[in-house]
């Protein structure tokens, strides 16, 4: 067993012994379920309206009416929920003085950063996996195109990975978990708002460049069913950058 695997095992163990995963998971799934119910309800109401106007059975598009809205709404849910999942990762180690133990064990800082990221990412994947129950159940009662749903899920996984890496970084800069959660929350909202800043510049090079920095347009394209290499590059490089910055922060605490 490599040190990275040992760290992943320990982190997962602690996540499941402490109440965090259960609480965050319950809230995440509850909100996902509620939103799905609401959007399906709206779609149903629209179908009835159409039926009355046309006088016959109406064809409604679940992809447009339910899933696109659902994935779009999940952005804000992830911004709020994921910092709670990541806040303990480094802050707790520093508070409990186990940080010193990790750094004096024969393993590299990269092992610690990667191990911690993978553990929280696995939990997130599990939660996202559970939400596939919603389209599976809807499949029994209606017909829709699965392709944009898969790309939507890909978007949610990539967006989540980016958010978790931002949260991991925020957790490394402080030993207070609340501060860590708040810092990552603030960073995620700021990156969100950069999209607005970009649109102020309109259809110029600067405007496109600034908008590119925000995750908004990249996520939207995936939710619409488009897989563009530039979006994948965005998420990939954002993730690597945040993990690298986390590595630097952890390393630098030794010099203080």
């Amino acid at each position, binding site marked *: *067993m490599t*040190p990275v*695997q*040992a*760290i992943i*095992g*320990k982190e997962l*163990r*602690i996540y499941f*012994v*402490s109440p965090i995963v259960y609480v965050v998971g319950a809230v995440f799934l509850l909100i996902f379920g509620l939103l799905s119910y609401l959007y399906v309800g709206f779609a149903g109401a629209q179908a009835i309206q159409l039926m009355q106007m046309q006088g016959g059975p109406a064809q409604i598009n679940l992809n447009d009416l339910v899933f696109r809205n659902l994935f779009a709404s999940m952005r804000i849910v992830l911004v709020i929920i994921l910092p709670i999942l990541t806040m303990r990762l480094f802050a707790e180690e520093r508070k*409990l*003085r*186990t940080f*010193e*133990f990790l*750094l*004096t*064990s*024969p*393993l*590299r800082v990269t092992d610690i950063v990667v191990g911690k990221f993978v553990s929280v990412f696995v939990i997130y994947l599990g939660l996202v996996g559970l939400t596939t129950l919603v389209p599976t159940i809807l499949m029994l009662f209606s017909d829709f195109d699965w392709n944009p749903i898969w790309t939507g899920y890909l978007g949610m996984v990539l967006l989540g990975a980016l958010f978790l890496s931002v949260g991991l970084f925020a957790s490394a800069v402080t030993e207070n978990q609340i501060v860590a959660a708040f810092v990552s929350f603030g960073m995620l909202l700021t990156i969100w708002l950069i999209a607005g800043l970009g649109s102020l510049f309109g259809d110029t090079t600067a405007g496109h460049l600034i908008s590119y920095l925000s995750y908004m347009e990249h996520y939207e394209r995936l939710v619409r069913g488009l897989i563009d290499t530039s979006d994948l590059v965005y998420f990939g490089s954002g993730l690597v950058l945040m993990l690298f910055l986390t590595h630097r922060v952890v390393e630098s605490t*030794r*010099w*203080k």
Partner: protein
Amino acid sequence: MIDVHNITKRYGHHTAIDRVTFSVAKGEVLAFLGPNGAGKTTTMRILTCFMPATEGTARVAGFDCTDHPLEVKRQIGYLPETPPVYQELTVTEYLTFVGQLRGMAGPTLTSALDQSIGRLELGAVRHRLIGNLSRGYRQRVGLAQALLHDPPVLILDEPTVGLDPKQIIEIRELIKSLAGSHSVILSTHILPEATAVCQRVVIINKGRIVAEDTPEQLSARLRQSEKISLTLKFCPADCETKLRAIRGVLQVLPGQGGGTFLIECELGRDLRDELARVAVMNQWGLLELRTVSMTLEDVFLQLTRHEDHSTETTETTVSMASPENQDR
């Protein structure tokens, strides 16, 4: 095994340790003694590669702490000030995790685990969550962690803190049993501990080493005069004057309780027979006569108090030197 040469650690303007040099031979137990904030923990953190020294070199088992930190970390078992335990894990889970971090697996890990749990008598609590254990047990789990991979070098920061007297004795016995095959550095501010388990003592105060020797020689070296305690049954008004008149007596101080005197005499002169003769001749009723040897506690206080006088000079040198260092 451990070679520390002229290490200095500065936090901004504050100098935590100042040109500390010492070495530990294979199988030796060394005590790091000093008041709180003297720089014991900082020195240990440098040795365990937790933080680098500002200046100077530290080597463990031939590996430099700055150049080969991973090699150094493999040679060391480290117990920090606060036992580094995860409250959500059981004792077995925690020690398994520690073993895995050190690349142990399978039967090697199982036997190391059993040995370590046995050594520290953790058998009864091995399946309990560490968060539910008392301070003493957590400290022992921390020690089990440091001993798990049977490292050649052990660095223990106040290993007996939080233990009850019986456990303290057991841990001291354990450390003594490690001597010979392991090099151990332990920090403490409990003096009898240093005398009980260590072959050598380094006294550190305000970041600098003020003394280094065996416990016995330290007290002998620092004894500037012989002290004799004398208890008399009757002590007339002139007895103090008469005692002072004896050749070689430097000072006569009233001791604890009536009729007791603490007599300071010139170094290397045993005045016990002379004192007895005078006491008997004057019919003072000699009750007790004994030499007073200096304990490590006295040595320690004397050394650290002595330091206080020179503090001012030290601090001016430091502040004068620091702008220069910032330029570099």
